[in-house]
């Protein structure tokens, strides 16, 4: 069975499916938390929660209470519970990478900072582990309930997605434009968040959309640069705090030793100065920051981002352009009599009537066959080989309400649908006049279909586009016997001849 693309669903349906998928990801990451060796479990959990929150935030306008503040607040608490731990972890990784490049005396400062960051990380993760299970279950149950309230109505996901893609891409472009120098920490942070939101917006449709998949790949690279820049900004702040703290601590230590008259310890304390290493790390962090900013400038700020945003606009236009309404293309032939009908084909009894519109004609139709009774309303604009026709199923109640208004503009016919190769022929035998026609619907790009042999034997002529043979025209002249091109005029109706069903 073909899987339906998210873009072909309604917004409520698509958002509910996406959010449920991320909740399942969060749940499986949570199950891995028990394994202390699995250091990525908490991170994966956090990312899944952020994705849920991001999708609910983006589509909040269309999903009612599922996108409400209560749900999003709880998700936010869950997603940010490990922020301090994660920041500490990132800094620890960078510091370890720098260890080999530091002189022995400089490592004192590195060790001091490492110890502090490890304590922060442990405390943050311990606290998160303590509460996360219970908090998650409460949030999951609430959200599942709210997602269950979403009906299948609402605008097409394709439309809302395209609308949000346009907005999110424009937002990112603006935010990137605001970054002027490596010191613009706040601006870079805002751009990082905008990039993350855009990526989370795009990810659910990458499976069906290669163009979107490419955008996501480029966004990941941008996020890496902005993420590293952000981490470096945070690291610089940590180093500044550490230097302040170490300076005060060192001053206090030296004073204590001096007052105690312990000259040996005082000399040792002077040699073991953490500030030297922290100052070196500060220089290294600054170099890293400037390199990252240079990369950001090259890839995104000075025209480098132009191609990305151009491609994003192309994707937006492509996805957001509503598919043209279905255009009915068909051929209609007047028949001299009934063709042979396969024994397996059972007729449908069709009654249809038109409301008295002129520019737009609305038709109501009842179809009865072996499977029961169904009702449709159809609106049509234009005529000929191509005309706009939109149909939807309606209720018996609506049919009963509108049917009396179609009086004087109705037809009744018996329809046989006969498959022939790639085409399905519809042979209509009118019940109130001496007329039989065959119609075939054509795929786009075709304006003809091969005439099957069984049909050619009774074919009088092509009447496609002939206003006299439009159902609506026929309905306006009830009961009149039509000229069948001399072949059928006035001929008594023949009963359907049956062909044996193919073995």
């Amino acid at each position, binding site marked *: 069975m073909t899987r339906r693309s998210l873009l072909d669903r309604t917004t409520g349906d698509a958002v509910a499916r996406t959010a449920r998928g991320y909740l399942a990801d969060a749940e499986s990451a949570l199950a891995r938390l028990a394994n202390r060796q699995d250091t990525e479990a908490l991170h994966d959990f956090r990312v899944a929660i952020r994705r849920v929150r991001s999708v609910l935030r983006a589509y909040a*306008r*269309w999903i009612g209470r599922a996108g409400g503040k209560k749900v999003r607040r709880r998700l936010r608490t869950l997603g940010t519970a490990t922020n301090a731990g994660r920041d500490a972890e990132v800094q620890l990784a960078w510091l370890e990478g720098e260890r080999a490049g530091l002189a022995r005396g400089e490592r004192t400062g590195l060790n001091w900072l490492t110890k502090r960051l490890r304590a922060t990380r442990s405390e943050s993760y311990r606290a998160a582990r303590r509460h996360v299970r219970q908090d998650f279950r409460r949030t999951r149950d609430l959200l599942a309930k709210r997602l269950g309230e979403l009906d299948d109505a*609402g*605008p097409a996901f394709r439309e809302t997605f395209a609308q949000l893609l346009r907005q999110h891409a424009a937002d990112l472009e603006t935010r990137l434009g605001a970054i002027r120098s490596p010191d613009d920490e706040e601006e870079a942070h805002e751009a990082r968040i905008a990039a993350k939101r855009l990526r989370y917006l795009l990810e659910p449709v990458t499976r069906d959309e290669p163009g979107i998949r490419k955008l996501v790949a480029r966004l990941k690279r941008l996020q890496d640069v902005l993420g590293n820049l952000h981490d470096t900004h945070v690291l610089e702040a940590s180093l500044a705090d550490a230097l302040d703290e170490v300076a005060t601590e060192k001053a206090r230590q030296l004073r204590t030793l001096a007052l105690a008259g312990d000259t040996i310890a005082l000399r040792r304390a002077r040699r073991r100065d953490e500030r030297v290493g922290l100052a070196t790390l500060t220089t290294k962090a600054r170099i890293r920051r400037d390199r990252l900013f240079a990369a950001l400038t090259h890839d995104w700020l000075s025209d480098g981002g132009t191609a990305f945003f151009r491609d994003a606009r192309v994707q937006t236009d492509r996805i957001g352009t*509503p598919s*043209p*309404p279905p255009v009915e293309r068909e051929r209609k032939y007047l028949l001299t009599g009934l063709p042979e009908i396969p024994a397996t084909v059972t007729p449908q009894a069709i009654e249809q009537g038109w*409301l*008295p*519109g*002129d*520019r*737009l*004609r*609305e038709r109501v139709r009842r179809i009865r066959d072996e499977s029961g009774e169904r009702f449709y309303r159809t*609106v049509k*604009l234009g005529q000929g080989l191509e005309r*706009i026709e*939109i149909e*939807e199923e309606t209720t018996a109640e609506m049919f009963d*309400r*509108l049917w009396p*208004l179609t009086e004087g503009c109705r037809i009744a016919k018996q329809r046989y649908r006969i498959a022939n190769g790639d085409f399905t022929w519809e042979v209509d035998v009118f019940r109130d006049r001496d007329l039989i026609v065959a119609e075939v619907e054509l795929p786009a790009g075709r304006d003809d279909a091969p005439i099957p042999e069984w049909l050619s034997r009774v074919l009088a002529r092509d009447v496609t586009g002939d206003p006299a043979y439009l159902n609506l025209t026929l309905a306006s002249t009830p009961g009149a016997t039509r000229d069948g091109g001399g072949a059928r005029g006035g001929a008594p109706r023949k009963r359907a001849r049956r062909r044996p069903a193919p073995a």
Partner: protein
Amino acid sequence: MDLLVIRHAIAGDRDEWAQTGKSDHDRPVTDEGRDRMRETARGLRAVFPKLELIATSPLKRAVQTAAIVAEAFDDLKVVELEALSPGLPPEDAVRWLAGRRESRIAVVGHEPSLGILVGWLMREEAESFVSLKKGGACLLRLPSTPAPGTADLKWLLPPKLLRQLGDT
């Protein structure tokens, strides 16, 4: 006279609005309702291109809807008509219509009042003949001086079909 009867766009939840203590008169259309109505209005224009005047109930959600329709018809004139307020009998609205010189008019209002107006114009029965969905519309053909029981229903379309027609 051609009379286009339009129900207002999707508005905020009635009960939630009531809890704010504000009057139902001021309950606005939602962002979603506004976006959808813009598409619906394009559909209305596709199937009924020439409109001369829009009359609307004075309630905020109807006035906002009328403004969206007016925009789709090149900023057409909108007048507020008390007779289109919810719960009022159809006679006053019909009297107002009979006094107009325009021959292609739209009215924007509420259910079930609009359904009753349609029933009154078609069958001279003050019973709801059709139930319009929010943003849905129907077109009535009336004599130049409209009177009860003189209208023909030309079409009745839900908003979804109108939006699709707006894409043509």
